[in-house]
C-alpha cells in the first residue's frame, strides 16, 4: 500500500491546514475551497487529513456508514429496519475521504441500478455511488473548476441538504449524504462560477512560500518521504497522534464553547463592515471561531479567534469586482483592524 504523506509534515501553508482542521472539528462549517498555484501541496494536505482523522463508529454492514447512536439520521432501508429488531452491531472504520476523480459519471456519483444484478438475476437493486461512500466523511474534488457544471450543481445541492435523492430506472432511493466538501483548483486554469463560491464554508488562497528556508524544507521533506516513506511516516507518528487528540478533544468541547454577546456583535459588525451578502458568512464566521476556540482549549470565543478565521470565512463572499484579486483579503484586514485595533 502507498503511504500517505503525513498532514503534520506539511511545511508552511498554515491557513490551509487550519481551515481543514476546523472543518474536521465542526462539519457544519460547510467545506473548504482551496485555490492556488500548482505544486503547493493542496492535494497532499487533503489526503493527509484522511490519515489524521480519528476513526468513527458505524453500524456494521451499513453502506452509508450510519451512526448507531443517531437514529434520526439513519438510512431508511437498512438501519431503521435493523434497529427495530433490536440493538445494532457497530464497528470502527477510518473516516472516509472520498476522491471524486475527474471524468466520473453521474450514475457513479449518485448511484444507480445495479446492472449486473439486474441482468443476471432480474433483481432491482440500488448500487450506491460515491455520495453514499462519502457519508459522514469528506468528499474531495481536485480541479473543481474543471468539473462539469451539472455535477458541481448536483454535489452542492446534496451537500446543502445532507440527503441524496435518486429517482432513476424505476428506483426511488433516498439516503443520508452528509459530507464535508473540499474543492481545490488552480485559478490560472479557469475560475469557479461566482455563484458556487459562496456555497463553500471556508476558502483559502495558497501561494508558493517565497522565503527560502520554507522552500528548502518542503523539498527536503518530500525527498525524504519519497526515498523512505515508512520511516518518514514513523518520524511524524507522534505529531500526528497529538494532532488527532487535539481534534478529538476539540470536538468534545465544541458544544460547550460560549459565544459572548460582545463577540456576536463584533462578528455582525465585521460582516456589515466588509459587505457580505446574507447570513451565511456570519454563521460560518462564528462556527469557525468556535471551532478554533475549541481547538485551542478555550471556554469561549475571543476577539482573537474571530480575527484569525475572518479572512477564510469571508474572503469569497464579498460583493466585489471579480477581477480585483487580493483586494478582498485587504478589505477584510482593514475592517478587522478598525474593529479590533491593529
Amino acid at each position, binding site marked *: 500500500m*502507498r503511504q500517505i504523506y503525513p498532514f503534520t509534515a506539511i511545511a508552511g501553508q498554515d491557513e490551509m491546514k487550519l481551515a481543514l482542521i476546523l472543518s474536521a472539528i465542526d462539519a457544519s462549517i460547510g467545506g473548504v475551497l482551496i485555490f492556488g*498555484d*500548482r*505544486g*503547493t*501541496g493542496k*492535494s497532499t494536505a487533503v489526503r493527509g487529513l484522511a490519515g489524521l482523522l480519528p476513526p468513527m463508529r458505524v453500524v456494521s454492514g451499513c453502506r452509508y456508514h450510519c451512526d448507531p447512536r443517531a437514529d434520526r439520521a439513519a438510512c431508511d432501508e437498512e438501519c431503521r429496519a435493523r434497529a427495530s429488531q433490536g440493538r445494532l452491531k457497530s464497528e470502527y472504520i477510518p473516516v472516509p475521504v472520498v*476522491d471524486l*476523480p*475527474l*471524468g*466520473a*459519471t*453521474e*450514475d*457513479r*456519483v449518485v448511484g*444507480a*441500478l*445495479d*446492472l*449486473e444484478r*439486474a*441482468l*443476471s438475476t*432480474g433483481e*432491482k437493486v440500488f*448500487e450506491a*455511488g*460515491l455520495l453514499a461512500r462519502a457519508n459522514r466523511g469528506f468528499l474531495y474534488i*481536485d*480541479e473543481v473548476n*474543471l468539473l*462539469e457544471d*451539472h455535477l458541481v450543481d448536483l454535489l452542492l445541492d446534496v451537500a446543502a441538504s445532507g440527503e441524496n435523492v435518486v429517482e432513476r*430506472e*424505476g428506483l426511488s432511493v433516498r439516503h443520508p449524504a452528509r459530507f464535508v466538501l473540499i474543492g481545490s483548483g*488552480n*485559478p*490560472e*486554469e*479557469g*475560475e469557479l462560477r*461566482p455563484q458556487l463560491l459562496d456555497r463553500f464554508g471556508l476558502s483559502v488562497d495558497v501561494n*508558493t512560500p*517565497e522565503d*527560502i528556508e520554507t*522552500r*528548502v524544507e*518542503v*523539498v*527536503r521533506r*518530500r*525527498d525524504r518521504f519519497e*526515498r523512505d516513506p515508512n520511516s518518514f511516516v514513523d518520524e511524524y507518528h507522534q505529531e500526528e497522534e497529538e494532532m488527532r487528540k487535539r481534534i478529538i478533544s476539540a470536538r468534545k468541547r465544541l458544544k460547550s464553547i460560549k459565544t459572548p454577546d460582545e463577540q456576536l456583535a463584533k462578528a455582525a459588525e465585521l460582516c456589515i463592515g466588509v459587505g457580505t451578502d446574507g447570513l451565511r458568512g456570519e454563521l460560518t464566521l462564528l462556527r469557525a471561531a468556535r471551532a478554533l476556540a475549541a481547538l485551542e482549549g478555550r471556554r469561549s470565543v475571543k476577539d482573537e479567534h474571530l480575527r484569525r478565521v475572518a479572512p477564510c470565512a469571508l474572503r469569497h463572499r464579498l460583493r466585489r*469586482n*471579480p*477581477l*480585483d*484579486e487580493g483586494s478582498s483579503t485587504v478589505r477584510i484586514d482593514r475592517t478587522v483592524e478598525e474593529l479590533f485595533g491593529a
Partner: protein
Amino acid sequence: MPDGLDHSEPTPAQDAALAAAMLAVDPFGLGGAVLRGRSGGMQESWLAGLQELVPDGLVTHRLPTHATDDRLLGGLDLTATLAAGRPLVERGILARANEGILLVPSAERLTATTAAKIVGTMDTGEVRIERDGLAQQHATRFSVIALDEGIDDEKVPAALRDRLAFHLDLDPLGDRYETSGFAPEDIRDARARLSEMVWGDEAVSVLCNVALAFGIASFNAPILAMRAASCSAALRGSASDQDIANAARLVLAPRATVLPPMEDEEVQEQTQPERNESESDQEQRQPTDAELQDVVLAAAQAAIPPNLLARLLDKRSVRQRRDAAKGAGAEQQTVRRGRPAGTRRGTLRNGARLNVLETLRAAAPWQSLRAQSRTGSATASSRRIVVKPDDFRVRRLKEKRETVTVFVVDASGSTALHRLAEAKGAVELLLADCYVRRDQVALIAFGGRGTELLLPPTRSLTRARRRLADLPGGGGTPLADALEQAGVLAQAIKRKHQTPAVVLLTDGRPNLSRDGRKGREAAEADAVDAAGMLRHDGVAALLIDTSPRGEQSAMRIAEAVGAQYVALPHADAQSVSQEVRARLGN
C-alpha cells in the same frame, strides 16, 4: 566517460542526449519530457535514442489528443459485456501505459481537463474509474513524452509541463541526432546505484535558490531537479557539484520566467543573457552556498536559449502565425462536440450517440418479463438481453458556442494617458461581464513597443486584469499591424469553433505603416487595408473612439472593419461597458 556529463558548456545536442540518458535511468521518477520542435523527425530520433538506452525497452502507447474518457480512463467493454451478460471493464490508455511511455502527439492541443486527468494519475500512481456503473482502480506509472509542434500560440497545458522534468527544444539541433555514448549496460549500472545518490542540505538549498532566482513558483521543479541530479550522479558513479549543475541546466533553466539578475529594465532590453552579472547579487542572498550556487546558476544561465525573452513576452511574428492559420484552416467544419450533460430518452436519429450503459440499465428491469413473453416460460435460459426502442438513451451534449472577446487596446502616445486609464476601466468592466458569462478573453495592445498579444485566449480573467494593469502607454500607433494580428487571432478562434468578437479601443490616428515607417496617410491606408480581413470574415466588432472629440479617421477605420462605431466623449467606463453590451448583443 561518455559525452555530456562533464562538459562545462555542452551543446544543445549533447544536452538533449544527456536528458535521454537521465530519463532512461529514472523514467517514472522524472515524469518525462516535452519535446518541442517543428521537425517530427528529430522527435522520433530522440525517442529512438531513448529506447536504445533503456535496458528492456519501454512499450509506447500513443494518446490521441481527443481521446474520450472511456479511452483515456477506461469504461465498459461493450462487446465483452454483451457476450458475458455482466458488466466487464476495458482498461483505458492510462492504465495500459503502466511501466511504459505515454506518447502525446500535438500535446499543445491537449485540453486542460485531459491534462488534469493525466497529471492526477501521475500524482497518485493509479487510475480511478467511477464511470458507467464501474468503480475500479488500476495502479499505473508511466513516463510522458509530450510532443509540442510549437507553431501556434498554443502551449502544452501548464499542469502537465510542470510534472515533466525535461523541456527540450529540438530545433537548434539541426537534423542529426547525436547519441549520448552510453550503452544499456551503463544505464543498468546507474539504476542500481540510483538509490545511493543522496544529496545534502546544501544541494537542496542551491537548487531551491536557483529555482527562485529563475522565478519558478512550483515545488515540482526543484524536486524533479533533485531526481535529475541523482540520475546524473548515478550515470557517473559518484555525486558531485557537476550533477547539480547538470540538473539546473536541464530542468530549471527551461522553466525560467525571469532572468537573474531580476532588474526589470534589463529584462525588457537585453537580448542576450549576460553570464557573470548575477554574482554579487547571489552572494548577498546566500553567503554559505554562494560559490556552488554561482557555478550552478552560470551553468544554467548559459543554457537559456537566446530566444527565451521573446518567448516569455509571447512575441511571435505575425508571419509565423499566419502559417499556422493556413495549416489547419480548411478541415474543421464539424460542430463543436460540446460537453456531456447527462442522457435522455431518445431515438438514434441525427447522429445522436447511444449511451449504451444507460440503455442497458433502462432495459434491465424488464428482462424477465420480456423473456417470458418471448419464450412463454418464466425460466428463460437465454442470456440474450432484449432491448426495445423505448429503452434507447442518447447522450445529451451541451453545445454552447463560446465567445472569445478580443480586446485591441491602443496604448500609443496619441491616446493621452488619462484616456488610456478610461479605456482600461472600460475593458475591466467588460471583463467582469465576460466573467459572469464564462466567456474567454484575449488582449492585444499596440503602441510604442509594436503590437503585442498580451494575452492569448483564456478564461483566467485574473491574468487578463494583471496584463492590462501593467500595460504602459506611449509611442507610435501601428494600427495596421494590430488589426492584422486581431484578424489572425479571430481566424484561430474560429478554427476552434468559438465565436470571436473584437472590441477595438483607439483614437484612430495611426502613424506607423506596416513596414514601420512614420507618416499618417500611408499608415491609415495600411490600416484600412488590414481591416479588410476582419470585415471579410464577418467578425462582430466594435470600435470605441477614445479621441477627445471624435475623429473622422476613426470612423473610416470602423467602416473598413465593419465595426460599429462608438465615440467615447469623456464617457465613464460604466457607459462604455453598457454600450458594448448593447451593440454586441450580449
